[in-house]
C-alpha cells in the first residue's frame, strides 16, 4: 500500500486551499466535491504543476516538496502519470508517437511495461498509426491513459477524465480505469464531481469542500455518513453496497445480487455469476415499513435495524439502517418518522424498487477487504 502525505496550502480566488491528510492509497482513491472546491488544484499540487503551493507533499516517504527554504521537486522528476480532463495529447505526433514519448522518458527503467502490452490492454492497437486530431473523445482519453501508464509512474493522477465524454462512451472507458490498479499495480487518485464515477470506481474517498478536506476513508463508510449528505449529494445521496451476483433472469432482464443483509434484484448487468460488483441505492428510493410485510415483492425486501437518524432542515429525515453488515439510508418525511415511531434500535423492513438501483459492473473481486459485505 502506498502512502501520500499532504499538508498543502495555496491561495485561490475565492478561498485558500488548505488540505492536510495522509492518504492510504490502495486501488482508486476518489477526490470528490462540488465543482470549484479545489479538487483539481490539489491534484496539480501533487503533480508539481502549481508553483505557488506551500507545504509538504511526500509519497511513500519520498519528499516531493517541503516547507519554505527547500526547493520543490519539479513536475518532471515526480514519478506520477497525469491524465488531464482534456487529454492533452500531442497533436504533432500520432498515437504511437504519443506512447513512445512517455516510454522514452519512463521514471523506472526496469519497468516491465511494454508499449505493446499497454496498447493491447487499452485496445489501442488499431489506432496506433492515427493522428490524434482524428480520435474521438473516448479514444483520446484511452491514449492519454496509456501514455500516463507508460511513463512508469508510481502514482496515477486523473482529473475528471470522463467529464467531456458522453454517457455511452463513458461506460466504455470505465472498465479500463477500474482495472488500472490491478493490471498495472499503480494506485490512482481520481478527481471527480460525478457520484456515479465514485460508485463505479472508487475504493477510497477524499471528500472536499471549499478548499478543505472534510473526510476521507473507504467509500462505503463515507457515503453512509449522514452528516456528510449535503456534500455527498443532496438528492442523489445514498448508500453504496458491494454485492455478489447470484443469478440472471434474461426473461425479465433482471440480475439477482446478494450481500449479507439479503438479496436484491437490479436491472440486468453483464457480470458473470459469482463476481462482485457495486450497487448504489439512493436514499430517496428506499421505503421503510414496520411490522409484518404486506404483499410487497419479497425480492427487494430486506430487514434491518435503525442505527441513526438525522433531520434535514426541511421536510426530510435521513434514516440509517443496518442490514447485515451493510448500511442503507432511507430518506423519509418527519410525519413517517412519527407514524412509524422510528428511533435508533427500531427493527424495520426496507423496500427498494429494483428499477431505481444502479449497478456498477466494474469487477472488484480483487479488493475484497474494501467491501462492506466482508468488513466486520
Amino acid at each position, binding site marked *: 500500500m502506498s502512502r501520500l502525505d499532504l499538508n498543502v496550502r495555496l491561495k485561490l480566488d475565492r478561498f485558500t486551499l488548505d488540505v492536510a491528510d495522509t492518504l492510504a492509497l490502495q486501488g482508486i482513491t476518489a477526490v470528490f466535491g462540488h465543482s470549484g472546491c479545489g479538487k483539481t488544484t490539489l491534484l496539480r499540487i501533487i*503533480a*508539481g*504543476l502549481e508553483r505557488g503551493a506551500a507545504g509538504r507533499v511526500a509519497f511513500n516517504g519520498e519528499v516531493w516538496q517541503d516547507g519554505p527554504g527547500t526547493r520543490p521537486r*519539479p*513536475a*518532471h*522528476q515526480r514519478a*506520477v*502519470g*497525469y491524465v*488531464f480532463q*482534456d*487529454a*492533452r*495529447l*500531442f*497533436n*504533432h505526433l500520432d498515437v504511437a508517437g504519443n506512447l513512445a*514519448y*512517455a516510454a522514452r*522518458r*519512463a*521514471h523506472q527503467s526496469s519497468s516491465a511495461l511494454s508499449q505493446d502490452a499497454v496498447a493491447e490492454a487499452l485496445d489501442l492497437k488499431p489506432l496506433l498509426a492515427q*493522428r490524434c*486530431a482524428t480520435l474521438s473523445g473516448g479514444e483520446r482519453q484511452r491514449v492519454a491513459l496509456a*501514455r*500516463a501508464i507508460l*511513463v512508469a509512474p508510481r502514482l496515477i493522477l486523473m482529473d475528471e477524465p470522463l467529464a467531456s465524454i458522453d454517457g455511452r462512451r463513458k461506460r466504455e472507458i470505465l472498465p479500463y480505469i477500474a482495472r488500472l490498479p490491478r493490471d498495472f499495480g499503480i494506485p490512482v487518485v481520481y478527481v471527480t464531481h460525478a457520484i456515479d464515477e465514485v460508485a463505479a470506481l472508487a475504493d477510497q474517498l477524499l471528500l472536499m469542500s471549499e478548499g478543505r478536506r472534510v473526510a476521507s476513508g473507504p467509500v462505503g463508510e463515507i457515503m453512509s455518513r449522514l452528516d456528510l449528505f449535503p456534500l455527498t449529494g443532496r438528492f442523489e445521496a445514498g448508500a453504496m453496497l458491494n454485492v455478489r451476483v447470484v443469478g440472471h433472469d434474461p426473461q425479465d432482464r433482471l440480475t439477482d445480487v446478494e450481500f449479507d443483509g439479503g438479496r436484491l434484484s437490479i436491472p440486468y448487468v453483464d457480470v458473470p455469476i459469482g463476481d462482485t460488483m457495486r450497487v448504489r441505492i439512493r436514499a430517496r428510493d428506499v421505503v421503510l415499513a414496520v411490522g409484518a410485510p404486506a404483499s410487497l415483492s419479497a425480492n427487494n425486501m430486506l430487514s434491518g435495524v435503525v442505527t441513526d437518524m438525522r433531520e434535514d432542515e426541511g421536510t426530510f429525515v435521513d434514516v440509517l439502517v443496518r442490514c447485515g453488515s451493510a448500511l442503507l439510508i432511507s430518506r423519509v418525511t418527519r410525519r413517517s418518522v412519527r407514524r412509524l415511531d422510528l428511533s435508533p434500535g427500531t427493527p424495520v423492513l426496507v423496500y427498494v424498487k429494483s428499477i431505481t438501483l444502479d449497478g456498477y459492473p466494474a469487477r472488484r473481486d480483487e479488493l475484497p477487504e474494501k467491501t462492506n459485505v466482508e468488513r466486520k
Partner: protein
Amino acid sequence: MSGGGLDLAPVGLSALLAAVTTFMLLIIATPLSWWLAHTRARAKVLVEAVTALPLVLPPTVLGFYLLVVLSPTAPLGAAFVSLTGTTLTFSFTGLVVASVIYSLPFAVQPLQASFEAIGRGPLEAAATLGASPLDAFMTVATPLALRGYITAAVLTFAHTLGEFGVVLMVGGSIPGRTKVLSIAIYEHVETIDYASAHVLSAMMLAFSFLVLLLVFVINRRYPIRMS
C-alpha cells in the same frame, strides 16, 4: 541608357542580408516571444510596445537613431570599433544590426501568437511525462509552433528584403557592401535607368507575391491544430 549588363550584386547582398537577419532574429525572438507569451510581469506591455515600435516608426527615424547609436563616436559604436577594428555604420554588420531591430516585430508577433495558442497545457502534459522544460520546449512547443516559425521566418526575410530608409541611413550605398536591392532600384530611377529599375522591381514583386502565397498556403494546409 542602361549600360549593358545589369549589376546583380545588390540582389545577392539583399538576399544575404535577409538570410542572416532571419537567422539571427529567430534565435533572438524565440526566448523573447516565449517570455511575452508566458509572463505575468507588468513589464510585459512595455516590452510589447517597444518590440512593436518599428511597425509604426518612420524608417528614417529608426535609421537616424541607429546611425547615432552605432556611430564610432557613440559608446556602442566605439566599443565595436575597439573590438573589431571596423565601424558598424556603413558596414554589412551594421546593416544586420539595423535589420534585426527593424524586423523584430515581424518575428516576435507570429511566434508569440503561436506560443500563446499552444498555451501551458501541452507543456504541463510533457512535464508529467518526464520531460524537462528544455526537453518539452524542443519536443513539444517547437513542433507545435512550427507554423509560427515558418510565418516569422518568411515575413522577416521579406520585410528585410524590402527595407529602404533604415538601410540608407545606417549603411549608405557602398557597392558590394551596403548597396542593397531597394537602394539599387532607387538609384536606377534617380539616373533615369528605368529598364534596370523595371527588372529589379519585377523581381521584388514576384518574390514578395510568392512569399505571401507560401505563407497563406502553409497557414491553410498545415495539419497541426491546437486540440
